């Protein structure tokens, strides 16, 4: 999958889970500080990415990911 496609899907997932407008999600947006994700939403995001990309992520490492751009790179490694 192309990186641009991964990015598009990541933003769609983030918008859906955090109930925010996809257009407002920048590449360097921080999940917690910019997008307001709480602990439960962070867990939901991980689960949603796993379903969207049909992957099983290392949760411990996934927790390290702070930004949308970081998530794109992290997920791309699994694809």
């Amino acid at each position: 999958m192309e990186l641009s496609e991964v990015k598009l899907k990541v933003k769609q997932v983030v918008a859906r889970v955090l109930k925010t407008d996809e257009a407002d999600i920048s590449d360097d947006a921080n999940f917690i500080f910019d997008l307001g994700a709480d602990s439960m939403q962070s867990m939901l995001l991980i689960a949603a990415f796993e379903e969207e990309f049909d992957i099983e992520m290392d949760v411990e490492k996934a927790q390290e990911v702070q930004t949308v751009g970081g998530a794109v790179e992290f997920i791309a490694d699994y694809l």
Partner: protein
Amino acid sequence: MYRNLSDSEISILEQRGCSADDWGTVLVKDNFSPGPISNAHFAGEVKLGVFKEKLLVEKGISKASGIRNSHVENCTIGDNVLISNVNSLVNYDIGDNVAIENVGTVVVHGETAFGNGTEIEVLNEGGGRELPIFDRLSAQTAYLLVVYRHDKSFIENLEKLIRKYVDKKRSSRGSIGENARILNTVSVCNVDVGSYSIVSGASNLEEGTIVSCAEDPSIIGEDVIAKDFIIQSGSKVDGGAVITSTFIGQGAQIGKQYSSEGSAFFANCEAFHGEACSLFAGPYTVTHHKSTLLIAGMFSFYNAGSGTNQSNHMYKLGPLHQGIVERGSKTGSFSYMLWPCHVGAFSVVMDKHGANFDTSELPFSYINAEDGKSVVTPAMNLFTVGTVRDSEKWPKRDRRGDPDKLDLINFDFFSPYIVEKIIRGSELLSELHESTPKTKEFATHKGAYINRLMLRTARRYYDLAINVYLGEKVVKRLEKSGDLTGMEKVREVLQPKAKSDDSSWLDLFGLIVPDSSISTLMDDIKSGKISSLDDLRRALVQLHEAYEEEAYSWCADLVEKRLGTKVGEITIEELTKIITDWKVNSIKLKNMVLKDAEKEFDQLSRIGFGIGGDEDTQIRDFEAIRGTYEDNSFVKSLKQEIEDMKAKTFTIGEETLGEM
């Protein structure tokens, strides 16, 4: 031992302002001297000890023993006792070195059991689960009495044992044990006061027992009003607490205007400011804040956020609902639950819940409300720093100093009881994952909603916890043996000594025990094999002491179920896998907890710090107050645990297992 007063002694006493209804019924010890007695009136049969030594009445204040300005009626007074300014001291046996000063009345009226046998309506405010309280009541006996009401013959037999015990307590004379202090108190009526108790500044104490001992005195402080109560050793009730029909267990603290009615608090509970009604509070139930009402619920190892409350009726058939909150759970500020609800172990409840739910099969959940739905995020609380801290702090905060600790408390974080629930939770999530179409946002289970996305992920977290538990038990077993010369020896060490059955496990307010053992105990009570409360105590202690081996046996069965291998026939490859999985998963779990701890030091946590300054000021102010993540003692200790775990290996013969 006692003799009549001589004429000269009577004369001295009268010169010192004393009088008696009949000097002939005032007996004294041989070496009695009347000097320390003044302005006292004696009525009925009175026996006096000797008054020779000073005693420490309160911190820094020693006074000469004696009887001054008091009315003493039908009492036996021990040696070196101070009774001063007591309006009425009637029908009491008073031990040596007791001080009673500035007290209105200390009286026994008629026959009483001193609070023993008082039935309190815990858990179900409307009644039906009445708990007869007594001065040797343990959390486990209370649990059996309250929870197993459906077994009528068991309850009848157990209640019979209690009645037999309570009948022995009945008397028309009270006792004030040696070295007790009753000071500046308005009224004490039909109260048995244990040795070394300190009652100071209380308002009214009526129909109760204060158990106390030299190792762990009980303290009843200022403005306390207590009626129909049992207070066990090492407890502190003060600060204007108002308690009615209430049991307070060892090492518990109730104060700061707390009010309680029809409630029981077991070991190490803390209750301040708020209100309890029909509360059945197992060990370590803690509520510190105003506007917190705990009503008609069963809790243990619990922490109530400010403003927590519950409702047990909807103005229909009365207060007939009840709630169960399993061990290790918390409720967030202003959380509300409409009973009936059943909250699974180690869960966190937030928000207002108007729906009834049962998450007992989903431990370690976050439970919040969204659009009127109770939404459960399973396994979420496995990785939170708060859960780990709680489990570490409970044993450290065991205040009980009485050598005879009545409540049997198992502090294990992962026990068969919890792991069994995790396994069931994992199976349940799997079933729900299979049956919930992708078009649905939520799966539902027993009144709770679970985000479909979490079904698969949370199951993985549960499985991680199971691996940690299995490995931990096996590793501990190997470490305990020390002698691992080869796989034959390993297999011998790992072979369980106790037999495990398919029985599920229970948490009896701290006692973790197989269901089958409780069934046997109940049968023994029904058959009369257990024929006294002492017998019951011994049986419960035996169950507590059998835990380690039984839990290991259960774990060995679990190894067989999950790996298809009997521990007694384990190969080195299988053992290597168990140890490696344990290390990998434990480190993962600890790292996730560390990650959670890191949030306590992040940008959002610094909000409000460094007022008026720039970001650098904010950081410096935060660090001055909260310290840094790196220097935090919990973080350091957890990081060290991870390093230790990484380094841990096992040498079996010439093989080294667990290298990373």
